[in-house]
């Protein structure tokens, strides 16, 4: 059926009673329904045609449920406002986006639950995130290579600091328990000292020396294989456990110990000490290494100007034979000496084959040591050729005269002079 609404019918379509719903159907399906509460229901969407072309459709979602939206009571107060809604569907106009708080680069955070806020203590410039107030042992810029200024946060005793690269990248670590910044740059694994707490009390501190240089020690890979082993190190600092050498004496009982080869104790039968008799026995020589040093007898009975025996020497010397008057033409002579301390004992044998013009007495010079006091030298000997006793006395610091016991000339050519004398130096 087709109905035409015109000016005559005034375009009014009415239901037959007060409870009927007015429906408009197309293709056998209700497209528009108007109930007695004057609520209009569209089965699909509402298309609004443009004034010249096109249309705008308002449509419910496919699974719409039962929703109700109430439009604002007025138009937006500013351009660009968005339509917002309460959970009950009451809609209103509101600004489409919020304005950032704070200043340029400041990271935004929820301040008070409903508002944005920014702070100079937390910024991001597109590359680096900078935080001035990180909670933890250090303030500073993460990844920075130089220390920052400001106060440090002290860790509580129960605090735990962890994280990959922590020791590498945080600058200027304080000492454990410190409340102020430590100087210097923190490098991986470097501490001036470490403190290890005992399980019940006390601490053990491992510390580098004040002038440490650059040293590295590598601990052994295993525990000692025996009790009492000591930690030793190579010059490169590689440490290992070793049985302490030198802990036991070298050699046999009573042998005096000496450094044998630079690193071990040694003993030898050539040097022994008897603790009962206090005898020190040396099979080799006792070598006095410093001039003026020797054997000190001051603890023995008696006293003297000196009780230090500081010299002993024996050897030969070549006597020079002359005469008190005239000269000896031909002779041969030999001499020997022994010096004990300051006393010199000399022996001379001279064969005067040609006495020449010698007279008075023979002189013996070229002594091995100078005579301290020439007037205190006395010689005794014999003319072997005649078996005549000879005497002599000092004439100078290196010469003495020899003559017969009766004060005469010992003899001319063919005289054999054998003389002994001693003197102090």
């Amino acid at each position, binding site marked *: 059926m087709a109905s035409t609404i015109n000016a005559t019918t005034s375009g009014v379509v009415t239901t037959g009673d007060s409870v009927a719903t007015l429906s408009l159907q197309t293709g056998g399906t209700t497209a528009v329904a108007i109930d007695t509460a004057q609520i209009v229901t569209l089965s699909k969407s509402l298309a609004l045609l443009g004034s010249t072309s096109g249309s705008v459709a308002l449509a419910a979602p496919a699974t719409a449920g039962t929703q109700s939206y109430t439009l604002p009571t007025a138009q937006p107060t500013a351009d660009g406002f968005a339509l917002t809604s309460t959970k009950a569907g009451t809609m209103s106009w509101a600004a489409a986006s919020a304005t950032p708080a704070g200043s340029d680069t400041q990271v935004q955070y929820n301040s008070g639950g409903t508002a944005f806020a920014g702070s100079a203590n937390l910024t991001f410039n597109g590359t680096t995130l900078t935080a001035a107030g990180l909670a933890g042992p250090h303030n500073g810029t993460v990844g920075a290579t130089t220390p920052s200024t400001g106060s440090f946060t002290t860790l509580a005793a129960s605090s735990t600091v962890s994280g990959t690269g922590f020791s590498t990248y945080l600058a200027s670590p304080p000492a454990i328990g410190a409340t102020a910044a430590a100087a210097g740059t923190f490098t991986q694994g470097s501490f001036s000292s470490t403190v290890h707490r005992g399980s019940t009390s006390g601490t053990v501190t491992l510390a580098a020396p004040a002038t440490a240089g650059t040293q590295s020690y590598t601990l052994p890979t295993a525990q000692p294989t025996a009790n009492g082993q000591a930690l030793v190190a190579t010059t490169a600092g590689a440490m290992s456990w070793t049985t302490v050498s030198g802990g036991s004496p070298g050699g046999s009982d009573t042998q005096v110990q000496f450094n044998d080869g630079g690193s071990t104790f040694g003993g030898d039968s050539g040097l022994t000490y008897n603790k009962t008799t206090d005898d020190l026995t040396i099979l080799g020589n006792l070598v006095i290494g410093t001039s003026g040093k020797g054997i000190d007898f001051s603890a023995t009975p008696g006293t003297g100007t000196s009780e230090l025996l500081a010299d002993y*020497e024996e*050897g030969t010397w070549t006597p020079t034979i002359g005469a008190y008057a005239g000269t000896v033409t031909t002779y041969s002579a030999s001499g020997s*000496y022994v010096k004990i301390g300051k006393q010199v004992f000399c022996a001379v044998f001279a064969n005067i084959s040609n006495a020449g013009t010698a007279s008075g007495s023979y002189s013996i*010079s070229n*002594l*091995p040591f100078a005579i301290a006091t020439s007037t205190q030298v006395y010689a005794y000997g014999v003319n072997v050729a005649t078996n005549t006793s000879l005497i002599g006395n*000092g*004439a100078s610091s*290196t010469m003495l005269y020899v003559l017969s016991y009766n004060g005469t000339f010992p003899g001319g050519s063919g005289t054999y002079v054998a003389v002994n004398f001693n003197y102090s130096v």
Partner: protein
Amino acid sequence: MSLTKSTVVDQITVTENGVVLVREATRILEDNVELSKAYHRSSLVPGQDISGVPANVQAICNAAWTPEVVAAYQNQVAVLAQ
């Protein structure tokens, strides 16, 4: 095995009055290890002829024997001879 003998002046002493005491050491060495050593001594008085003595001894004598030292020694001997 090699045996070597060396003689060196190993000690030179100058006394207060200028007498120079010389000690020669003669060493017998086997492969540079000393087997024995003997000393031979002599004395040189100020002003005496030192030709023929080792150069190092001459140097000491020439340094020690100033004209004053030689004169003093000769005077000392003359006094003792009286």
